[in-house]
């Protein structure tokens, strides 16, 4: 991928994320999640411009963008109180039922591949209304029929919950999640890819519309906002990433 292509890819993802977050008041972002953070910053900037309600962005592990004063547990408490509207989760594996695996592949505990661990996923998936699954790699090894280990379950009819998956965003496509049905539905395919590319590289079944639209690329105003204000804001917390966003 050329540097220019890579920038276009990032700008598209950032724009899609801003759209997915529309309407939220407080989003929490991981310390090493520059694209989600940029998407949140884009929404915040737009809302400011349009006089819409302000957006609060908590960047975990940052002291500058930290609205918390009660230690590491406060994000989790805050989510339990219904004060976190959106969060991002990834996954070494994501399955068609929306379950995610951050633990590893093979048989537990001596797994073939061991990943770091479940972090807060088992909890936040239940409590944050709009969890956006964000995983850049779109391949059958990531998007599997059934995860080897359920770090966090997408739907649990046996308990009341306000939280769960809202969408799945990859380098190829955007899926919505249908909580009633407990599965994904392809919403759009990113420019440069076809619905068949998505089918070939997705290991699980999903619903799809008759005509699959392309994911809208950022309009000129949005692209300028990303390349200007957002890049500057990103540079504070994610200097490395902001450099890769510079015009080629």
């Amino acid at each position, binding site marked *: 991928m050329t540097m220019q292509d890579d920038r276009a890819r990032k700008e598209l993802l950032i724009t899609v994320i801003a759209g997915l977050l529309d309407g939220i008041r407080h989003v929490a972002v991981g310390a090493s999640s520059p694209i989600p953070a940029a998407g949140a910053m884009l929404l915040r900037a737009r809302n400011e411009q349009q006089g819409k309600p302000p957006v609060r962005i908590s960047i975990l*592990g940052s002291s500058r963008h930290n609205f918390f004063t009660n*230690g*590491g547990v406060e994000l989790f408490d805050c989510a*339990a109180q219904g004060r976190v509207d959106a969060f991002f989760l990834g996954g070494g594996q994501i399955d068609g039922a929306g*379950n995610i695996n951050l633990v590893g592949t093979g048989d537990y505990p001596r797994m073939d591949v061991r990943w770091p661990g479940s972090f807060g996923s*088992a*909890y936040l998936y*239940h409590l944050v209304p709009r969890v956006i699954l964000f995983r850049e790699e779109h391949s059958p090894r990531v998007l599997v029929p059934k995860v080897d280990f359920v770090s966090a379950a997408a739907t649990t009819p046996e308990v009341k919950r306000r939280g769960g998956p809202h969408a799945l965003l990859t380098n190829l496509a955007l899926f919505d999640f249908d909580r009633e049905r407990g599965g994904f539905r392809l919403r759009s395919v990113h420019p440069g890819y076809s619905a068949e590319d998505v089918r070939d590289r997705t290991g699980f079944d999903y619903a799809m519309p008759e005509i699959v639209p392309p994911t809208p690329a950022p309009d000129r105003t949005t692209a300028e906002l990303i390349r200007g204000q957002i890049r500057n804001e990103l540079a504070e917390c994610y200097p490395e990433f902001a450099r890769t966003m510079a015009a080629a």
Partner: protein
Amino acid sequence: MTEMVGLQALVASIEPGQSVTIPVDRAGVSMAATAAMIEAGLTGLHLVCVPISGLQADLLIGAGVASSVETSAVSLGEAGGAPRFAAAIRAGSIRLRDATCPAIHAGLLAAQKGVPFMPIAGIVGSDLLEVRPDWKVIDSPVGEPGKVVVVPAITPDIALFHAPEADRFGNVRIGRYRELATMAYAARRTLVTVERIVERDLMATEDSAAGVLPALYVDAIAVAENGAWPLPLWDEYETDGAELARYAAMARTDEGFRAYLSAFLSRGKQVA
């Protein structure tokens, strides 16, 4: 009352087989005490990571000090996966208690409150419930009928962390990192390394007292300048990313890890 001791004496009070609770990288990790623990040849420790760990857990696992770990993740963050942790999992040489971040906070909170368990939201549907038979799903005894997960109290033998400063009464400045207080409340004994001892009373004003763990909970303090290195310490220094990357590369093999460890320990001795 809080004892002021040297680094060796601080870790000498930890006994083989004890449980030791340690904080997440950014909250003040005592890498100085980590080196001293490896040097002292401690074995069989059970680590409780609040709620995750990185270099510290990887070193203690790789050096054979820790044989058991409760954690929500072990990762070197931007430097990648934790190589000795992953190797130990493959080899089956450590006992792992996989958790999720708020469950570790909840277990410590139960100990803080002197209750046998703590209810916790979410988790239902996760395979963590399969691999953690000590976590139970119960019917809520109050309110609307519904299932609730409960986790048992975690009462570590030792809480161990690094902070910018303590005063001579034993009060320790922890700022907003209140998980350090939770660890100390829950643990039987609390050992702290600090950058320096200050002359002023940290409890003297309401503002400074708000960010203090009182001496009441602090058993011993040792001074260790730069004691979180290569991890960061708030208000003091940033992560040494190059050093973490060097570790990540070297620790891929057991030999590389040994070489890193040997340099790490002799650096510690020069500093001390």
